[in-house]
């Protein structure tokens, strides 16, 4: 997830200081990706170094506010214009775990699938409860993020069903493999050589 671009997008509304940016970010994304204030300040420092934002006069309470520069506006515009590519996303630990589990001897992969299924289902229950909550907690932005999370959880559950099916199929193919194959690989009868 791109924190720099997120902060640039928020600054498009007007100059803000660090704590304000953190609050706005969490409001828009329903605290899905909590930011600590240290991350916000180090990102602001980098954005300033790169000429994408500039410090403003401090406000009445002495807080440092930042504004977008022209370069910042165009970087932000490019970010919105470009699709998110696969390489931008973090590696999916679950896919890696199941892939490796399927090749690890002596492991009950179905148990791994079921454990994950229950965990993901619980998550979907929690997200569904949030969706039912009355009132407008984070507005449209948060509701769209929430829908994304729900649909991802659903997709993960479908994928787990698919993995389970594939594993069962592979296991039964293993069991019914014709013994002829093993015979072919067996060494020649020793009688012949003994002579």
């Amino acid at each position, binding site marked *: 997830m791109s924190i720099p671009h997120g902060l640039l997008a928020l600054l498009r509304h007007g100059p803000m200081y660090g704590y304000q940016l953190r609050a706005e970010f969490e409001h828009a994304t329903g605290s899905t990706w909590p930011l600590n204030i240290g991350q916000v300040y180090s990102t602001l420092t980098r954005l300033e170094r790169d000429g994408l934002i500039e410090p403003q006069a401090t406000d009445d309470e002495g807080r440092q506010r930042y504004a977008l520069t022209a370069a910042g506006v165009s970087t932000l515009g490019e970010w919105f214009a470009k699709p998110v590519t696969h390489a931008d996303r973090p590696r999916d630990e679950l896919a890696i775990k199941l892939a490796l589990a399927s090749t690890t001897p002596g492991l009950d992969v179905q148990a791994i699938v079921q454990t994950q*299924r229950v965990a993901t*289902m619980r998550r979907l229950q929690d997200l569904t409860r949030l969706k039912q909550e009355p009132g407008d907690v984070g507005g449209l932005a948060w509701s769209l993020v929430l829908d994304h999370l729900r649909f991802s959880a659903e997709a993960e559950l479908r994928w787990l069903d698919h993995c389970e099916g594939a594993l069962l199929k592979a296991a039964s193919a293993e069991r019914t493999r014709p013994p002829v194959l093993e015979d072919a690989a067996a060494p020649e009868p020793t009688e012949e050589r003994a002579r």
Partner: protein
Amino acid sequence: MNALDLHQVDRIHGQGNAAVHALRGLTIHVAAGELVAVMGPSGSGKSTLLNLAGGLDRATAGSVKVDGVELGDLSPKELARLRRHKVGYVFQDLNLIPALTAAENVSLPLELDGVRRRPARAAAEAALAEVGLVDLADRLPADMSGGQQQRVAIARAVVGDRSLILADEPTGALDSETGEQVMRLLRDRCAAGVATLLVTHDAAHAAWADRIVFLRDGAAVDDTGARPVAESLLTGA
């Protein structure tokens, strides 16, 4: 007291070589006001479970209680009465009566239970309104879409004063908006104290439940209500 208690239930269909063990030692409780979803692969015993809970089928072994009443102890007549009075059922294949209109289908269980025609009709119209079908009250099932028929079946299950609703894939033919509307309706009934056991393949709908029970080969393998215990899956770890 629970609205539904299944304790160590077995159900074997058929005999001898043809015997199918549809449920094996299944224990499930549903409290009043609770919405429990059941998920599992085709053939895992979900419909068998609902049929037993609704008194449409009898357990081979074990105990099935609705509102504390052991169904195995009831005569067929008492069982039929309990079904009409306490249990609302949405069948996987809907089971609407083709010769009756939507409103007549919905009011039928009330009338069979002795409610007079006029109040029964009013209750039926209210239930149809809840599923967004008030304008179709006088249509025959054959003249409705699959999703509309499904909603009539749901209205029939929730009409009146039931303590237990059993729903077998009630959202199967519905678009996501209407499916969500049905889930909201079931949740509202639960908030009013009704217990619901819902079978669904749709994770988005199951997620509305308080608990999800996973069935496999006739046994419950997991329950999202139980807290997880992490243990190593590798021996020698």
